[in-house]
């Protein structure tokens, strides 16, 4: 169900995913469908670009004033009768949720799809405390029953087709009954199974799309109504919210309520959006707890280039336009945050050494940046993180860094460069080593061709010409192409 703690390298996981032709068909079909629908939904709003600009600025401003916004949110929620908890990491958040469930004598909680709680493996943590968490979102239910973890932010069971889901339901929630392949019949089976839970389980856990600092209002955008069930019917509601989900003003909702549905499900509006503020006597839960979660977010915030990953509103538009994601699917990313946004968020949240291959899971085509409703410059962050991985992770005691440093030294001086050219002809020195594939630079050299080192450089040819010698130089294995070939490889001649 949950994502593995430390992922396999992306290239390895991606190769395996690419061999699964069913998966490739499912993901390819889904991403193509959503891509076209989204383009139409966005084209309908003449002020789309202005909304993106506003969304981007609201997020940037929020991050710059984050302490103030969180203090305001905390005060507003408390004023409205809610209780605010703080969690430095996933374990702390899980303990808080488990504590609340136990205090209410619950051995079951109902859950509405939430990436934050997936990120911290809340379900497993609750299970260890003897509390069973029931996923109520249809796709999450499918994944939970199948023991899978999510492959798409928005359509988490995108990798399963209807026949697979029917067999799964007949084995589990609809045991002994024969279902049809029709999505309607499968949905009905889930409705019947979950209705009793909604009516009886006393504690619910949700995530949050936004938390409004000004008013203490929490927002959840959804389609099925399971979110409304969870936040309305149980006696106790616990919401786990990443600290980056705060927005300053109620008015900011007018921007995100337009950007999010069109970017994610390509709808003018998703069927249900709920906004609640603390506890409302006679309407909904009697107890409301808000758990504000760090779990690596402050590490992301400390990187001035990378911090914009925290602006993400989890719409998944970048997944659907990504040429890499649409072939590998989400599970290859080894994280509940797949696709382009996952490639910049996961390494920063978990630490670069935990996911060092993800910043390379991209062709840098820029489609993600163009699709992002809050204009996160994902390509720039990817390149920035690649640099950080080389400097901070791979650079440590690896051949590549030593060789690159030697090459930089060579390129730094004409005398050293010319000496290196001569050595390279003998297959030695830094340039010879690069061309020949030095230990530690194997992968680097495999993907790049160094021009063949000519028998004579342009400068050598020129000097010889001035001295009145022949074009063929000293005749030691010359290519015969003369000065053109020599000049072409004379990379450092702008001295």
């Amino acid at each position: 169900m949950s994502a593995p703690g430390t992922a396999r390298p992306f290239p390895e996981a991606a190769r395996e995913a690419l061999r699964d032709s069913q998966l490739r068909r499912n993901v390819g079909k889904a991403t193509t469908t959503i891509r076209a629908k989204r383009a139409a939904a966005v084209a309908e709003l003449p002020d789309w670009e202005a909304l993106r600009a506003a969304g981007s600025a609201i997020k940037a401003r929020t991050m710059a004033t984050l302490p103030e916004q969180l203090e305001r949110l905390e005060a507003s929620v408390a004023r409205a009768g809610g209780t605010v908890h703080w969690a430095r990491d996933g374990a702390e958040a899980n303990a808080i949720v488990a504590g609340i469930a136990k205090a209410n004598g619950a051995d079951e909680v109902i859950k509405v799809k939430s990436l934050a709680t997936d990120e911290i493996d809340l379900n497993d943590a609750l299970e260890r405390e003897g509390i069973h968490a029931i996923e109520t979102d249809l796709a999450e239910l499918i994944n939970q029953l199948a023991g899978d973890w999510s492959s798409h932010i928005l359509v988490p069971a995108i990798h399963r087709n209807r026949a697979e889901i029917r067999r799964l339901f007949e084995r589990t929630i609809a045991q002994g009954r024969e279902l049809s392949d029709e999505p309607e019949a499968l949905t009905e089976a889930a409705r019947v199974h979950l209705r009793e839970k909604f009516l009886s389980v006393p504690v619910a856990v949700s995530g949050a799309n936004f938390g409004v600092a000004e008013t203490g209002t929490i927002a959840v955008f959804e389609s099925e109504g399971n979110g409304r069930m969870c936040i309305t019917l149980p006696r106790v509601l616990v919401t786990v919210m990443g600290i980056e989900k705060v927005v300053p003003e109620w008015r900011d909702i007018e921007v995100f309520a337009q950007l999010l549905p069109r970017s994610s499900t390509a709808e003018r509006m998703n069927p249900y959006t709920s906004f609640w503020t603390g506890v409302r006597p006679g309407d909904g839960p009697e107890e409301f707890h808000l758990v504000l979660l760090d779990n690596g977010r402050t590490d992301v915030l400390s990187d001035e280039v990378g911090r914009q990953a925290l602006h993400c509103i989890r719409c998944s538009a970048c997944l659907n336009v990504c040429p890499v994601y649409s072939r590998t699917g989400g599970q290859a990313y080894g994280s509940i945050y797949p696709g382009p946004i996952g490639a910049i968020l996961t390494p920063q949240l978990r630490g670069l050494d935990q996911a060092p291959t993800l910043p390379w899971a991209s062709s840098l085509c820029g489609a993600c940046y163009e699709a992002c409703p809050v204009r996160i410059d994902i390509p720039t962050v990817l390149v920035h993180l690649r640099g950080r991985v080389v400097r901070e992770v791979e650079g440590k005691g690896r051949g590549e860094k030593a060789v690159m440093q030697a090459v930089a030294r060579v390129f730094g001086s004409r005398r050293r460069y010319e000496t290196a050219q001569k050595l390279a002809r003998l297959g030695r020195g830094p340039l010879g080593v690069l061309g020949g594939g030095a230990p530690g630079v194997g992968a680097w050299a495999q993907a790049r061709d160094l021009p063949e080192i000519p028998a004579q450089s342009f400068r050598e040819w020129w000097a010889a010409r001035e001295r009145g010698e022949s074009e063929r130089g000293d005749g030691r294995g010359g290519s015969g192409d003369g000065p053109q070939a020599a000049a072409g490889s004379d990379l450092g001649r702008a001295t």
Partner: protein
Amino acid sequence: MTAARDTVMRRIRDALGPAPEGPDAVPREYRQADGPVDFDPVERFAEVVADYDATVHRVAAADLEDALGRCCRERGATRIAVPPGLPWRVAGVETVADDPPLGARDLDAIDGVLTGCAVAIAQTGTIVLDGAGTSGRRALTLVPDLHLCVVRTDQVLPAVPDAVAAVAPAVREGRPITFVSGPSATADIELNRVQGVHGPRTLDVFLVEG
């Protein structure tokens, strides 16, 4: 508890440094509340709601109660819940007022619910409920399988910013706000939109002129 709060706050301040950069103001060049639109809100609302597979009934105020009764008969609903003080009666149908509040299991057993709304949004086909008056409690419009919703044409606002501004006072009072855009749906199985998972599977909107 406070230790966690202090640590997180300290980490944020350390991460941001002494002078965090951010835009001084949010550019709001998009169409804001009360801005101009190039469509007729009522016509657009009716079209977009119908696009969601909800049924739109356009009726004159004088015909509303008959239309409600006809719809209930067609849907096979003989007993429906209503928020206390709802101004409309339904011809030939038993209405059960939510006063004292109906339990969730009572609502599960009832045929449907009839409410009004706070405002509606034309561009997105959204009904906005504000947890008071004719909108009723949240559970009322959630548990029953049929929702009949009366929207007066003067409640239809052009776009999202208009509605967000209109319900701001209710939000500041701590009232819950629910946006309903069509019946409950999912596209989780092979991206086929299937109506009705957990919320009302049938939504009938009565757009009343005047």
